[in-house]
């Protein structure tokens, strides 16, 4: 099952493609800018669906 996992780092959220049975991300998919007002979001890691429903 492919998953898309995002992490917050240095002001941006980077979503990566993860393949089954492979350790670590295999491709960067989308990079989102972090929240404009807050220096750091409360949540630092997301699955795609979670992020789509509630970005920050």
């Amino acid at each position: 099952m492919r998953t898309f996992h995002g992490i917050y780092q240095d002001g941006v959220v980077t979503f990566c493609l993860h393949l089954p049975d492979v350790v670590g991300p295999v491709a960067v998919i989308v990079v989102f800018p972090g929240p404009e007002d807050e220096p750091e979001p409360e949540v630092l890691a997301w699955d795609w669906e979670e992020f789509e429903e509630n970005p920050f």
Partner: protein
Amino acid sequence: MVSRICCGAPLGVRAVPIVVETDVRPNLLKVSIVGLPDTAMRESKDRLIPAITNSGFALVRDDIVINLSPADLRKEGAAFDLPMAVGILCAKGIVPESRTRDYWFLGELALDGHLRPVRSVLAIAECAREQGAAGIFVPRGNGGEAALIAGLAVYEVAHLAELCRALRSREEIEPFRPPPEEDGRDESAVPDFAEVKGQAGAKRVMEIAAAGHHNVLMFGPPGSGKSMLGKRLPGVMPALNERESIEVTRILSCSGHLKNQPVPVRRRPFRAPHHTASAAAMVGGGSHPRPGEVTLAHKGVLFLDEFPEFPRIVLEVLRQPLEDGWVTISRAVQQVTFPADVLLVAAMNPCPCGWRGDPRRRCRCSLERIQQYRGRISGPLLDRIDLQVEVPAVPISRIRKLPPAEPSRVIGERVNQARARQYGRFRGGLTTNASMSAKELEEHCRLPDALSEMLEHHVERLGFTTRVHAKVLRIARTIADLDGRDAICREDLLEALSYRQLDRPIESGTLQEAEVGS
């Protein structure tokens, strides 16, 4: 007496019929060849007389005029030696011309009368059959190539004297019968993906490329395995079908690359020209146009390592053949069209120093230098490359711990299944997803509204063009085909979006930076 002997001359990767007219008159022993012969052909006259006399036939005080018809077509090479020698023997009445009428002749003569193999035999044999010839005489070693053309009797001969004996006797000549083809004769020569440990993402991209015939651009630091991956791609592509096999064999034959390879060629071509290659070397050229690398890689892989180091003009001339699958070389006297249906695999470093994103060394390139380096690949050319993937360096300590990698055979089976779905869907029209037009995209990549909106949103956010939007859809279609599904799902689109990495701003980070962060 004037004799007429049929043969053919290669023109591009095809051939045209040529008639060798020979007139012999008693006088001094002198041979003239007319009808636009090249240097090698003009030198034939110095080979013909010794070859004929050493085969046991006397030529004394004869004036010989040989005309190669049509006279306005430039002919080249030594393959006309045999038809000219047979023409002389017919004109002299040594060989009955009636025995030669239904046949074509082809071959280079040695001074002792032995025949040497020549190139372009397959194209000329094909032309002979189209012109209604009953058979063709070729030198020993060329029979297998000519025998690929069904409905044409092939006769292999080793010596001019042997041919003359056969033509002068009333006995039936035994046609050449090719030996049975060996199963899997080429498989061991293709490197296997099992030898590439790690690089799961890049291997996944190779599988998608092979399944949908999508062009690929890999970028990563030196030694990360880009070339290894590229060389293994032909091993997972579907086997050449009969028609493709004949096309590839004909190209190799006409370009003189067939040498002693078994025929027909079953292995997909892999060409990796150096970045100093000229535009003519890449797409073909010369006063008598010869195929270039893009044609030699027809139906196979054209691997361009150090992609931005190729001269701009060389990269730009690739745009048209990549789009159309053929290239036309025009010269003042003739125009030749070469097939050029290739899967392009390009490889490059992420920056001029090569180490951007690599945790082992620090990259010292400024943003401007990186932009300048990547800018050597024009936007229109980049638009023709469907898949762009980062190939990060894998530490040796990690490689050692990785389990054995999946062999090419297993990947190839999945690719074959995905191709079978495409053949079924396009029903004999298109063959792969990469060549879908806007109309076919509409028909075969229809998305529910929610997915359409999601894709449009991200395409706009990432600043992708409409052409890239279509490419993402084509890639998603191939990903769904690999998964055996008719409908494209959200994961297919997101995965396809992730393979357009060079379309994003350079500041957006690399896979290794993301990996370190996670």
